[in-house]
């Protein structure tokens, strides 16, 4: 099947079997290895991408479902060398350790921040919201504290 999609702002075409996982098409056919596999069953969120404005696990999406849709991966999150606010905050706050979950967390968090899902919330509410909204992304290194800190910092920066 010939699949056309808008990937990180560019139109891309791939010739693949329609049931191939989006994750594998990204990593193998398109050689975009920033999207990671942690579990292959939608538990860990390391493979999170943004599909038509929604954060999805690319291990659970067949490429055939992506025809004609808009896709953003971690490779499209920064503008060249200029990081997204979430990426900047993750570095500044120490929110990345081994880094294998980080692209997925950056994608999900960028979705939360860019959509203004924390707008207007006080600190306690915002932290609780982050914990709920990112519950599909597992990090085994940080205990989450510094990632939550980073997302709050990024949300403040974007709101300002």
């Amino acid at each position, binding site marked *: 099947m010939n699949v056309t999609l808008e990937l990180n702002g560019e139109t891309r075409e791939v010739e693949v079997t329609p049931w191939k996982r989006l994750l594998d098409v990204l990593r193998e056919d398109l050689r975009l290895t920033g999207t990671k596999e942690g579990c292959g069953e939608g538990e860990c969120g390391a493979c999170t991408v943004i599909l038509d404005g929604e954060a999805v696990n690319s291990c659970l999406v067949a490429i055939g479902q992506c025809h004609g849709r808009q896709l953003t991966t971690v490779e499209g999150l920064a503008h060249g060398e200029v990081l997204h606010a979430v990426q900047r905050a993750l570095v500044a706050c120490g929110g990345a350790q081994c880094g294998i979950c*980080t692209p997925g967390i950056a994608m999900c968090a960028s979705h939360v921040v860019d959509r203004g899902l924390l707008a207007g919330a006080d600190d306690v509410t915002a932290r609780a919201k982050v914990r709920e909204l990112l519950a599909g992304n597992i990090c085994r290194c940080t205990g989450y504290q510094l990632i939550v800190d980073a997302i709050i910092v990024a949300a403040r920066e974007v709101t300002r």
Partner: protein
Amino acid sequence: MERPSATGLAVGLAPVGASVPRVDGFAKVTGRALYLDDLDAPGAWHGATVRSTIAHGVLEAIDLDPAFDWSQVVVATAADITGNNFANFIRLIEDDQVALVPIGGRVMHVDEAIALVSAPTRQLAFIAAKHVKPRIKALPAVFDIESALAANQKLFGADNIFKQFLIRKGHVSDAELEAVFAGAARVIEGTYQTSPQEQMYIETQAMMARWDGEVCRIVGSMQCPYYVHKAMKAFLDCDADEVVISQSVTGGGFGGKEEYPSMLAAHVAVLAKKTGRAVKMVYDRDEDIAATTKRHPCRTHHRLAVDASGEILAIDADVVMDGGAYLTLSPVVLSRGVLHAAGPYRSPVVRIRGRVVATNHPPHGAFRGFGAPQTTFAYERQIQKLALALGEDALAIRKRLAVRAGDTTATGQLLGISVGTDEVIGAIEQVAGKPPVRDGHGPSGAPVRRGRGVVFYFHGAGFTGAGEQRLAGRAAVAVTADGGFEVRSSSTDIGQGAITMFSQIAAGALGVDPAAIVVVDPSTAQVPDSGPTVASRTCMVVGGVVEKAALAVRAKLEAWAAAHDVRGSIGEVARAYAVKHGELVEIVAYEPPPGIAWDDSTYTGAAYPVFGWAACLVDVEVDLDTYEVAITRCVQAIDVGKAINPSIVKGQIEGGTLQALGWAVLENVVYKDGKVANANMTNCIVPTFADAPDLETILIEVPYPYGPSGAKGVGEIPMDGPAAAVANAVEDALGCAFDELPISPEVVAASKPRWRKS
């Protein structure tokens, strides 16, 4: 001019002690960091492993499904392993674990490797593996500690005991010990069980090999390149320079990538040889959970004898761990377990017995804490029971009984320097505030009971006993031919921030910006053996060596500059030196601090050069409808000597803390007939963002004069204490004891008849 600072460090600020952003942060947040499976390897084939489906037996044959198309697949078995007497064994402590079970050989556990397949695609390799059918004649299997000790079925030696220890302090015979217990005003006694735990690094085990003529080049996800190197030298029966081991960016380890990567390295090397291609092996999550090492399940029987005034007269602990099917690292895990089993409490008389037994479970192995979390759970439950029996405040009793400088440990080690007892307990006292109100309603409106638990604990930093002295880990600091600075060490960054920390230590010693330091990728072709990345030793031991090497480079450069009348910053001097003389390398080996004496035959003396100290407070809320234990507050106060990078140290502590909280209430590995029954992330759960409370971390710095700028180990200590703090808090909430982990909703539900009447 120095290179402009990429670290954002203000000019003139000392690099040591600053929360410099991690060196690899940019690459990681952009997805540009290359883990093993991301490496471009054109033409590489993929490997998969055929595993045993039964726990114990004799391998009679390996059949290939005649209906399957084998033309695109290469199959390897033990018959393809050629070499000397050590061939087919994974060299570690006893060389007892095979890489592949040979025909006629004994299968010792479910998911043991029997054969390997390789194919052009990963999918084909995994499908082909399912068409390789081992024929195994089953033998009776052993799955629990009692059956192992009964030794009706012999798995190891005559008694199934891989290793045992006996520590005695203040007495010479069991009769003498029993006399102390007989004369005690009060005896506190209990049995404590902890469950196996999966490391659950998010990057699964991954390795790639290719043969370059006679040289085997292996790259992969690992903690200890020189462990893999040592194993592969024996496995391939080759010289040191005929096998090169390099670490790729590693997505977490926590101990799980200490010994097991040697197994993958052996497997990919065999396949690469047979296919004549590069071969890559990346485990599926289910395979990784099922086949690789986990934390040892442990049962500890613990007795405390106290006098009429509440002073401890004697401590007696009997520790038994399930080592699984092969010896692997079990003796050293047990060693650390028993050395921590008396806890950081004063006692004139101590007996610790420890045994680790063989079963037909997959081998248990290294996991952050390395035996100490298991025994810490036991002794901190015991101290809590003593507090309840005496009606004494939980923090006050710990403060009263804790060791301080001038006291001795169970092995008779006289504590002198860097003992942070009062500082960590004091820090918790300061922030504790009022305990939660016992009865109430949770966020969902359900009735809840709340409680608070505290613990005080310690963790020996670095290798046990004479380990560091024997190892004499080396590291180098160099001025390169182009005038830059390099740190060369085999310590790996597995997410804990080693390369950032090394760059700060070297920069501090050299007097340059951390951005001017390059920490080279650990490959056995280009770094000396600094020892493994384990045992909370990377900063304290290897960091100390890096500091010395950097100071030596600086001294040489300054002497050269003075002799040749070269002026300028140390960076300018280095460039001038390099133009004239090329590279300048200072290699330094670790030397233990003075006065460290350990007797391995009696298990007495200085077990560790120094200890980290910690206190932890946990508040819980038990949902009386769902029986879930929610951790609503967790404070850790940890004495780290000196935080080289406070943000990274905080991250280490919080990560370890949440692993401990997870172990306490929701993590478990369930075996059924020797097979992991929950080998996937859906059922083998770890805490999510939503399960974790906001973590409060208090860094205490009681300097260790022999560590770099006073630093001592931090990686493991946060894992040891919180599980007992949770159990103490749940006991406080419900009024009954919880002596087994995990404290799952099922366990809480079953405890209902024992709850305190409200």
